[in-house]
């Protein structure tokens, strides 16, 4: 590449960057809108903690915080449950929780029956909907959301599930708008939820 070409491509690059910046500026109105994740998500039907059929789409009009786990997992799962609950309670204190719904899906329907979820979840004081179902149905939901989990009859004292721990923020149309790691920042999620109300 000779000098002139170098100059030209650098110049072109600058124009491209300037154009991109302009485009970004145009797209980011209104400020801070969360992009729709088109690769993940979708409606599904499972059984809720009252033993009733439950479809995600019945929550249209509400912002959903969706997360996965199992109640025999004592380390990360209760921590995530506690943090999601804290998000909900913070929103409630601010009078912003009316159209917010935390939803917990178990990987472990054998042990996490509707009855067990009904006893387990209220303790977190966040009106969490617990969902269970048969293994293929749960597997399908996990696939929709890109959740990976494997049941392991390991040496850790009973069946155990290795799993990813993302938390999903869904908008009022049930579309995935953001993913968070298990150690998410509570204030960040509270602020994000408010942008979708």
């Amino acid at each position, binding site marked *: 590449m000779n000098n002139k070409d170098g100059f030209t491509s650098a110049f072109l690059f600058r124009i491209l960057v300037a154009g991109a910046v302009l485009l970004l500026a145009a797209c980011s109105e209104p400020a801070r809108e969360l992009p729709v994740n088109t690769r993940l998500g979708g409606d599904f039907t499972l059984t809720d903690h009252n033993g009733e059929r439950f479809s995600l789409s019945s929550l249209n009009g509400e912002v959903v915080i969706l997360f996965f786990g199992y*109640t025999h997992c*004592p380390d990360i799962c209760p921590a995530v449950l*506690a943090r999601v609950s804290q998000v909900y309670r913070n929103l409630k204190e601010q009078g912003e929780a009316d159209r917010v719904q935390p939803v917990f899906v178990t990987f472990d329907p054998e042990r996490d029956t509707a009855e067990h979820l009904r006893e387990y979840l209220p303790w977190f004081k966040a009106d969490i909907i617990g969902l269970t179902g048969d293994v293929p149905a749960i597997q399908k939901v996990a696939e929709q959301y890109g959740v*990976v989990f494997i049941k392991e009859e390991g*040496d*850790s*004292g*009973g069946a155990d599930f*290795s799993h990813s721990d993302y938390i999903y923020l869904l908008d009022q149309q049930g579309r995935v708008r953001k993913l968070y790691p298990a150690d998410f920042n509570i204030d960040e999620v509270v602020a994000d939820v408010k942008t979708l109300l």
Partner: protein
Amino acid sequence: MLKRFFSAVLLAAASSGAFAEARIEQAWLRAVPPVSPSMAGYFVLVNDTDQPLVLTGASAEFAGMAMLHDTSTDGEGRRSMSHLKEVTIPAGKSLSFTPGGRHLMLMKMDSVPEAGETPKVCLAFQNHADLCGAFQVRHNEP
């Protein structure tokens, strides 16, 4: 006054080397619903002795089964737990058990201690007497 006296004693003991010991610090259990089948605990084990310590397990009166677990994360972000059969803490070092990593796991519990309680949990060693500590049950990490 009393506190100052004890500090002075501690200082004297530490400098003479006579106070070298192993101890449990920052011990806590994560509060879980009363119907929970298990509970996790966290702590820092400080080995101020002049010997490496080999930690092999744990026990608690209220739990039929207690184990030390390790957590590993694979390339796809899957986390899994495994039984930590023994771990060596070199002399003068400490080892942390923290959420998402190494942890104490209590199973087959007769009753689940509530937030605010401080049940006793003991750690077992291959080459040291059991070390016991009050583990504070709490909702959030200290």
